[in-house]
Each structure stands twice: as C-alpha cells, then as structure tokens.
C-alpha cells in the first residue's frame, strides 16, 4: 500500500496537542486521514472494534503520547504487540519529557521512534516534515 494513503491514529488526551498535530499536518501537506483517541483504552476499542465498528483500514501509523489518563501509552503498546492483527503497526512515541526507563521500555516494544515534543512550534513542524518524508519513503503492508 502507498503510505500516503495510510491512516494515522493519534493517541493523545491534550486537545491542544491534538490541534497542534492537525495544524502541523495541514501546514506540511500531510494528507493521510487522521483519527484521534484520548487514551489507550479508546485507541484499542477503535482498533479492535470493541463496542463500535473498527477503524478500516487499520491505521498502520500510530502517534502515541505516553502520559495518558486511564490506560497509559506503554500499557497500550503492550496490548498492541500482543494482538495478531495489530502487532505490525508502526508506532512513534511523542512525549513531553524523555525518561530513560520509558524510552528503554518503548524500544523493547519495538517502537519506530521515540520523539520528545519540542517546545517551539517551528521545531514541531520540522518533526512532522521529517516523519512525513519517512512515511513517503517506506512501503507499508495491507
């Protein structure tokens, strides 16, 4: 599948961070459909179709905040890797502060990258541009 059409799931509870990501996508011409889940549980419900229709196609790219209410980012990641239909999803952790132990655990769960969200919006735009060109470079299953 062309990664341009790949759906993206953003797992983030802070509405302003959601708005920032959407605004940066728009500014950088990222056209992939984007879905938002406020925590890990909602994200899993959306992916697995628990109590609601599952997202289709399955978002192959997941942008994951770690500090979430309820089911946190790392818990979500563990369940994702245990699920036969979801374990291939590519996950980028986007967090506000790098903690050494969180980072180690995230990479042990095979994240594609661990990104500390920059304070400056201009730097965040560059982050999104870099991710975008990476997604355009790679092929994704499905």
């Amino acid at each position, binding site marked *: 599948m062309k990664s341009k059409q790949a759906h993206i799931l953003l797992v983030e509870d802070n509405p*302003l961070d959601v708005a*920032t990501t959407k605004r940066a996508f728009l500014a950088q011409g990222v056209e992939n459909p984007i879905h938002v889940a406020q925590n890990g549980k909602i994200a899993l419900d959306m992916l697995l179709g628990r109590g609601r229709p599952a997202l289709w196609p399955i978002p192959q790219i997941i942008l994951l905040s770690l500090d979430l209410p309820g089911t946190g980012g790392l818990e979500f990641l563990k369940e994702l890797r245990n699920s036969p239909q979801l374990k291939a999803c590519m996950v980028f952790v986007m967090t506000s*502060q790098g903690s050494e132990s969180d980072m180690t655990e995230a990479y042990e769960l095979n994240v594609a990258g661990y990104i500390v969200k920059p304070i*400056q*919006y201009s730097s965040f735009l560059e982050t999104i541009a870099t991710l975008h060109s990476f997604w355009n470079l790679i092929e994704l299953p499905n």
Partner: protein
Amino acid sequence: MNSQDPSCQQQLEALKEEYEEFAYIVSHDLKAPLRAIHNLSAWIREDLGEGLDPDIQNNIHLLQHRTERLERMINGLLLFSRVPRYDLEVREVNVENLVTQWVADQGPDVPAKVHTAHLPTFTTYARKLETVLHHLLQNALKFNTQDTPEVWVEAAEQESQYVFTVKDNGIGIPPDSHSKVFKIFYSVQPKEQQENLGVGLSISRKIIQFVGGSISLESEAGQGATFTFTWPKTVKEPAL
C-alpha cells in the same frame, strides 16, 4: 540532629524523596502548558499574516523568547534534581585528557588557552567530575572579555582527596555576589543582557556535595576568578 535516631533518619529520607519527586514533577508537568503557550503565540502570528504591526511582532517575539527561556530553566531544574540519581557509573578518569578533550571540542574559533598541571587519573564518578569541570571551564571562557581568555586547571593531592583549582583571567565576580553565585538561577549580570541561566554552578556545587567535597571561590571584579573544589579519592556509597 542525632543521626542515630531512626525516626529522624526516616524523616530525612522521606523529605529527600519528596524533594526529588517534586523537582521531577515540576520539570515534567510544566512543559505541556509551556508548549501550548509557545504554539498558540506562533499560530496567532501565523494567522495574522504578513504586514504585521512591528510592535505586535516584537511582542510575540519577546513572548516566545521568554517561553524558550522558561523551558531552559525547567531543563536546568530537571538536571539539578537528577544529580543524586543519574550518572552514577564509577570508572577510571584521566582528568588531563578530559580537559584537553573539552578544549578540542570547543573548535578552533575559540581562541582560549587552557593550561593544565598535575591533573590526576583516578577512579570516581567520571561523568559527574566531567560535568563540574565543563561548567567551570565554560564559565571561565564565557565571562571573559580578554583577547585571549586563559584558564589554569590544576590539582594538588592530599591524603584522602584532590584539591582542584580552576583559575581564569576573566571579568571576575564582585565579592558581594560570592555567596549567591551557587544559588540556582542566580546570575551576576542582568537578565536582559545575557542568555546565561545560572544553573551551572548550582549543579556543580550539588555534585561536589554529593561526592563529599566542597567548593569555594576567590575573586575580585576585573581580576579573574579562582574556583577551588575538593574531590575525594575514593567513592563512598551514595546515601540513598
């Protein structure tokens, strides 16, 4: 305080833990709203479009500049709070190499001369000693208006410790500021003039206290500054 008293000891431990947790939470959780302020001001500027009134443009610039400064202060606080918990690996460190490497890393554009004498090689908290020397060297060159800034880094061996001195030919520190320079976020120069945060010496002193040494300062305005610190030869187990 009687250190044999278990309840007193327990209280101290609890306080220490609380303090470290506090500093971590402050540095961690203050970042999200800060990012929001920075982003929102960037969007306002973007949405107002070209041809913005220079006053408004300047105010947004100042607002963003202050947010960035606040971020660096938070990072400094985080580093400060991490002193007892991070960089704890003990290995052999060649202090002479450490200093010459730092000077080399500054690149050829820095016209500084760094002289070394009697620097030891010993086994200790290598990263911590490195951090202290980096901050002192950095300050020695930063607060220096000479055509050729010079720094002398020396050590003297005593029975159970080394006495390191870092001396420069810089602008010096007025005596009435000597007791304040180790305080976090304190800076001798007015905030408007400098990008300096005032965390380097606080972190250095905290590290030196952590390993069981002490640091002092001799300086007159315009006469350069000499920082002297002691560093134990052997690592004692950290009192965690």
